[in-house]
């Protein structure tokens, strides 16, 4: 659907932009624009009572903004109700309540009147933005002084760790793997058993649901999880790429690099609880 600041015709779907969101209505005449709730200005928001389907003149609807008219594409024109049907559908709902910002708003209303289909492209776009956002979360914990007793999954990995003869390495790698479990759950809502872990021919562990990197050193264990390639370094930054942070205590420098490092979140895990780290944690 395209939108143009064209002259409105009866039955047109119209919209105005207020702040970052659009308010929609069905144009009947300059004296009658039917909409679900008044335009969301600060003044209208302060009014008592929940939004209802109402009719106002074009000036109240537009709030001084440019009114745009929907121009349906060919496929939409086939589904589009006639102007009379659209207006009748809108008028039949005058006084109706049940407004919901996300699930039953002014855009759902106009689409139902004009196409018989309740949908909100603004909601769909925001939901898409959230689902496809770049994820790169780094979980940190102090390396435990004793070997953690919790079970490791997959079993094959547990067996590998049990075979490590270097006690410190065994402790660090076990702690990192347990940290990965917390990271998978929190960042990707994935359990270790459902994440699809497997060992590649080259010996590296990978998982289907997300990419990850583990590292230990300087008294900390780190697990990075992402929906793109990711790698971790502990110690001085080796290259100009990636996001580098130096912890205040213990004084350790950490570099995370990869495909989705635009917004890297750091979490500190203690007693099974993850806490988002703000700048106070870093030097």
């Amino acid at each position, binding site marked *: 659907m395209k939108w143009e600041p064209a002259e409105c015709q009866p039955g047109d779907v119209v919209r105005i932009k*207020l*702040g*970052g*969101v659009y308010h929609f209505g069905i144009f009947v005449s300059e004296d009658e624009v039917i909409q679900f709730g008044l335009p*969301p200005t600060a003044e209208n*928001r*302060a009014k008592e009572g*929940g*939004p209802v389907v109402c009719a106002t003149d074009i000036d109240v609807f537009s709030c001084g903004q440019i009114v745009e008219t929907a121009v349906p594409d060919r496929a939409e024109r086939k589904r589009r109700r006639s102007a009379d049907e659209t207006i009748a559908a809108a008028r039949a709902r005058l006084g109706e309540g049940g*407004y*919901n*910002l*996300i*699930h039953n708003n002014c855009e759902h209303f106009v689409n139902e009147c004009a196409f018989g289909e309740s949908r909100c492209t*603004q*909601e769909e776009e*925001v*939901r898409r*933005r*959230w*689902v496809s*956002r770049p994820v790169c979360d780094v979980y940190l914990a102090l390396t435990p002084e004793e070997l953690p007793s919790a079970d490791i999954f997959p079993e094959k990995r547990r067996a590998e760790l049990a075979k490590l003869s270097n006690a410190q390495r065994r402790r660090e790698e076990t702690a990192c793997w347990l940290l990965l479990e917390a990271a998978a759950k929190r960042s990707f809502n994935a359990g270790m058993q459902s994440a699809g872990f497997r060992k590649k021919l080259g010996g590296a562990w990978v998982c289907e649901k997300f990419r990850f990197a583990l590292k230990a050193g300087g008294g900390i264990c780190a697990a990075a999880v992402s929906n793109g390639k990711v790698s971790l370094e502990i110690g001085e930054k080796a290259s100009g790429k990636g996001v580098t942070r130096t912890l205040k205590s213990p004084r350790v420098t950490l570099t995370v690099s990869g495909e989705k490092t*635009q*917004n890297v*979140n750091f979490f500190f895990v203690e007693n099974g*609880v*993850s*806490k*988002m*780290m*703000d*700048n*106070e944690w870093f030097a």
Partner: protein
Amino acid sequence: MSVSRNEILEKLKEILVSADENGREKLSAVTESANLYTDLGLGSVNMLYMIIATEEVFGIRFDDVGMNDFQTVGDVVSYIEGRLS
């Protein structure tokens, strides 16, 4: 699903940072008493983003919600807590 109030707040911080990366410093240290509009400067788009992301993260549905229903971060935490209980 048993989630503590503190865990909800931590997840909400993450969502707010994702909605407004420029405000990371302020948002990652936010407390329940922070006003969404006056302290955090949330606009209508970010408000929508916060609500939709919250639905996705916690698997809940915001019913009977208007733009005006939440004033503070604590209001949102309470709403989520209520839906999860």
